[in-house]
Each structure stands twice: as C-alpha cells, then as structure tokens.
C-alpha cells in the first residue's frame, strides 16, 4: 500500500507528472475522497491509499486531463474499465495522463464495519481478516463482511490500460453479479413494481449517482436543460423518480462498466447498480457478451446491430421475464 504513495512522490519528484490524482482522508480515516496533489509535500501530507480507496478516479480525468501538464492517476482494475471507456468516447486526453495500475483485493466500506458493530474506529489492519482498532479495543472482522457491495461481485482483476503496474496483472474472474437481477426477474410484475417503488421512492434527487458516474459525464445533463423537455431538478412524484432513473440507466446502457459507484455513493442506499446490470444482462443475453471498457475497438451494442437481432417481442417470451 505504501508503494502507491511512494510512486506518487517518485513521479512528482522526477518531473514525469506535475499533478497526481489520488485519495485523501476525509472526516474519518475510512472516509476517503478523491483529490489532486500538486507537490511532493502535499502528497506526503495528505495522500492516502488504503482499504478504503474505493472511489473510482477516472471521471475526474475528463476535466483534469485537459489542463496544462501531465497528471498521474491510480487505477484499480474496475476503474481501468471506466478509464478505457472514457478514452473510447474521446472524453479524456490520454497523452496528458500517466496511468498507474494497482492490483486490488477488494475495497472496504466504513459503513459496513460500523454496522458490523465497530464503534469509534481508529484504524484497520489488513490481513487474513481485518483487525479493527477502536477506542474500546480491537475487533476482528471477516474481510468479506466489510467489502463494498461492488467488490463482493468483482468481475475482473485485469487492468485494461496503464503505463505502469504496481502488483501483478490479473484476469477476469467469475462473478455472480447477475444473480440479484435474476432474482428480481423471477418475481411477478407486482412484486417487482413494489420492490422498485420502495427503493426509488427514497430518491431525494441529490444527483450523487450522476455526479460520481464516469458514464454520466455530459457537458450538460438533459435533466438540467430547459429545452430538452424533461428538465427537472427535484422529484415531485413517483413518475419523476422513475423517469430520472430509467433515462439515466438508458443513457449509460452499454457504456456502463459496472463500476458500482452509483450504489456506493447513494445516501439513500438505493441499489441503482441493479438497473445498469439489467441492461448489461439483457445485452449479454440478446446481443452477445459485451463489457464496456474492456477494449478499445469493440462497437458498443446500441451503436451496432445484426440483421437477425431478436424482435422486441422477445421480452414477452424470454425466460426470466416471468409474468
């Protein structure tokens, strides 16, 4: 873990880059936020790479890579998919970026630790299982229990694009990430409707999902645009809760790398990733496996077609979409 910070210092010191995009501590040690460091001193003082560096840094490159000078960025495997997807969409200037890939065994979530009963945490030690130091003594927690939701269904340990690697290059790993979607699909429409009403009705339109999502990076969102015809800033009723999330999911269809940031940041704990994953699952089933950001040249399924694509009526008969 220390190697990451050392690398950041080394890159700044050698003049390879003029800025470093990384993480710094927030209010608590488990509450890390993305930050740009402009000097060795700043890194030494504030840069943190720990079990809580879950945040995906790729999105910040849209703005940062357009600035003067080169910037270093640290990318976990799942972040590298967003990084590549953004390059495919010409959103970032690759030549201004020095990408350091870092292997990852899953990131942890402070909230999970707290709900596991850790009060007054002062630090965490990684190991076979986690040793949590608290004001009231040490506690041992299974790492599995503390993992972020997105890390529990990790799909790949492969770092798609990088200039330098810390740790080993990994491979795609088997994941049962569609299990939850399949569970929902197996419900009756009434149950599904009730499920999503319960979830989406909590939405307060804080736009955290939109702000964190690397795919949701429009110059101006349609929901903020008075001429789009769908402008709306606050949800007034159930329709608008649905509308926002349906359209948002549709707009990131086949562009979403399933990085899971939307659900991670949602203050209302709405499982937003289940919307995106539904589209990913459908695409895989109907048009062949596709992983956004896994390569540089595949054609996104919504910008592609085959003559013998299934008709829309397929959803009436397909397994899983049980009535």
């Amino acid at each position: 873990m220390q190697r990451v910070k050392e690398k950041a210092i080394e890159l700044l010191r050698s003049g390879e880059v003029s800025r470093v995009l990384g993480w710094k501590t927030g209010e608590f040690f488990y509450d890390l936020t993305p930050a740009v460091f402009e000097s060795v001193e700043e890194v030494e003082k504030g840069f943190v790479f720990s079990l809580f560096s879950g945040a995906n840094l790729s999105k910040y490159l849209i703005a940062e890579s357009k600035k003067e000078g080169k910037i270093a960025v640290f990318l976990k495997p799942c972040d590298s998919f967003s990084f590549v997807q953004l390059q495919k969409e010409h959103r970032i200037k690759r030549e201004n970026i020095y990408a350091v890939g870092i292997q990852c065994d899953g990131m942890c979530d402070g909230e999970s630790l707290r709900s596991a009963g850790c009060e007054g945490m002062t630090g965490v030690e990684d190991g076979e299982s986690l040793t949590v130091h608290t004001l009231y003594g040490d506690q041992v927690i299974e790492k599995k229990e503390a993992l972020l939701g997105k890390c529990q269904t990790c799909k790949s340990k492969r770092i798609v694009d990088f200039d330098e690697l810390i740790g080993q290059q990994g491979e795609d790993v088997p994941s049962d990430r569609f299990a939850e979607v399949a569970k929902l699909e197996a419900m009756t429409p009434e149950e599904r409707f009730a499920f999503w009403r319960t979830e989406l009705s909590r939405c307060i339109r804080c736009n955290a999902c939109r702000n964190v999502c690397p795919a949701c990076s429009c110059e101006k969102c349609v929901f903020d645009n008075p001429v789009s015809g769908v402008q709306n800033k606050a949800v007034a009723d159930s329709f608008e809760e649905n509308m926002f999330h349906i359209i948002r999911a549709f707009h990131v269809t086949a562009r979403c790398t399933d990085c899971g940031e939307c659900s991670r940041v949602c203050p209302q704990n709405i499982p937003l990733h289940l919307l995106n994953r539904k589209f990913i699952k459908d695409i895989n089933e109907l048009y062949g496996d596709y992983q956004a950001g896994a390569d540089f040249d595949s054609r996104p399924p919504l910008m592609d077609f085959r003559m013998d694509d299934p008709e829309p009526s397929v959803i009436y008969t397909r397994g899983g979409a049980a009535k």
Partner: protein
Amino acid sequence: MQVNKEWTPTIVAFCCNWCSYAGADLSGTNRLQYPANVKIIRIPCSCRLNPMFILRAFQRGADGVILCGCHPGDCHYTTGNYYARRRMTLLFSMLEYLGIERERTRVEWVSAAEGAKFAATMNDFVKTVTALGENKRLEDLRCKE
C-alpha cells in the same frame, strides 16, 4: 371527466414517415376501422423515437405506446430500424423489470402496403391495453385533472 362514458385508453402510435405512416394512410384509404383513441405521431424514422417520448406519453396520461416502422431491412435510411429495434427491446425490457406492464408498449413493423396489418395491429393493441385498464404505474398524477 364525463361520468357515464365508458373508459377507453389513450394510445399514442409513433409511425415512421416512409412505411408505417403510409401503411396507416392505406388502412384509411381501404376504410379499415380501428378505434379512434389511437393517435398517430409522424416521425421520420423509427430510430427517431427517443425513450423520453415514450415516458413523456405515459406521464401525460397515455395508456399504451406503440412504435411502427419499416420492416427490418427495408428502412428508408437503410439501418434506422435496426437501431430502433435494439433500443426498444432494451427499454421495454427495463420497463418490464420495473414492474410496469409490458403489454403497454409494443413495436410492430408495418410496410406501406400493409394497411390491413396496421388496422389489425391497432385493434389488437387497443384491446390489450383496454384489458389492462388505466396506466397507474407510470403516471404523473399532476397531469390528470
């Protein structure tokens, strides 16, 4: 709202200019009846249909939305309906996933020669939506008096 009037659904039909709108015209020319609650909106191609239009229709009180376009392979713009087919498949699947009745949305390919198919499609769609009743799951209460 009139009291004694039987409820009939509001249906919005998006028709591509080159095939389905002409097909709809043909069913008129042949005097083939279908219910008056189907209202057609002309778009240049099925690929012009933005999912936002569909949701907007439901918001404003539509009970069913149908997209008609040229048969795959016959698109005036060569490839438009292939894109529309993927978009609508995924969108409808998502609506279904959210528990919104899938029978309220439909895609049908109607050529300029298929006046009879257009009328039959509309009759069947109106029947299906009538059986479902009013759109409750995807409505905006403010838009209903």
